[in-house]
C-alpha cells in the first residue's frame, strides 16, 4: 500500500478516511479545495434533500421488524454525515410509527440518501487514486502548454 504521495507528501489513506468522515474532505486535504467544496455541497445536499423529502425518517439502520436496513448500508458510504443523522432519523421514525413505511416520498428520500452514499464512495476512491497514482509530470506539463497556447 502507498502511504505517501511522492509529490505532495499527503497520504492517500488519510485522504480516503477523511473523505469518508466528511464528504469532500479528502480532496480538500490534497489541496483541491474547489472540488472538495463541490463534493461536500453535492453529497451533503443530497442527504439533506433526502431527509427533507422523506420527512426526516430515511436514515434508519433497523426497520420496524428490527431487521437491518440494507439502504442504510448504502447510505453509510457518506460516513460521518450519515452517522450524525442516524439517531435523529431513528427518533423521528419511531415517533412516526408504521405509517411512515407507506409514504412514497419516504422511498424517494431514502433513495436520495443512498445515492449520496454511493457517490461518496466514488469520491473517496477518486481522492485516494489521485494521491496514490499521480499523473505523469510530463503529461501535466503538456497540458499546461496546451492551456497557455489556447
Amino acid at each position, binding site marked *: 500500500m502507498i502511504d505517501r504521495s511522492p509529490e505532495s507528501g499527503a497520504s492517500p489513506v488519510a485522504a480516503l478516511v477523511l473523505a469518508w468522515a466528511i464528504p469532500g474532505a479528502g480532496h480538500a486535504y490534497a489541496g483541491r479545495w*474547489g472540488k472538495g467544496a*463541490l*463534493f461536500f455541497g453535492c453529497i451533503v445536499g*443530497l442527504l439533506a*434533500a433526502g431527509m427533507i423529502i422523506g420527512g426526516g425518517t430515511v436514515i434508519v439502520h433497523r426497520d420496524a421488524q428490527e431487521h437491518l436496513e440494507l439502504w442504510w448500508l448504502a447510505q453509510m458510504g457518506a460516513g460521518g454525515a450519515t452517522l450524525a443523522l442516524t439517531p435523529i432519523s431513528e427518533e423521528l421514525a419511531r415517533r412516526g410509527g408504521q405509517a411512515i413505511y407507506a409514504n*412514497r416520498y419516504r422511498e424517494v428520500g431514502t433513495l436520495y440518501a443512498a*445515492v449520496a452514499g454511493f*457517490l461518496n464512495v466514488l469520491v473517496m476512491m*477518486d481522492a485516494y487514486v489521485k494521491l496514490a497514482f499521480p499523473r505523469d509530470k510530463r503529461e501535466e506539463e503538456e497540458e499546461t502548454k496546451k492551456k497557455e497556447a489556447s
Partner: protein
Amino acid sequence: MVETVRHFFEHLLTLSNPFWLYYPLCAVAAVVYKATKFDDPRQIARAALHFFLSVTVGIFILAAVFYAMNRFF
C-alpha cells in the same frame, strides 16, 4: 397515435409516484461523477449536462416503450 401520445403525457403528469424528484438526483449524480473525471469546471459542466440529458432521454424512451407495451399487449 396522437391520442396515445397525449394519454402518455397525461399519465405521466397524474402519476402518484413523484417521478420528477428523480431529475435533481440524476443531475447531482452527473455532476459528481463527471467532476471525478475532469478538472476544468467548463468541461465538468459540459460533460455533466451531456450525461444528464443522455440518462433523462434514455429513461424517457424506456418509459414510452413500457407504456406502449402495457397499452397494446
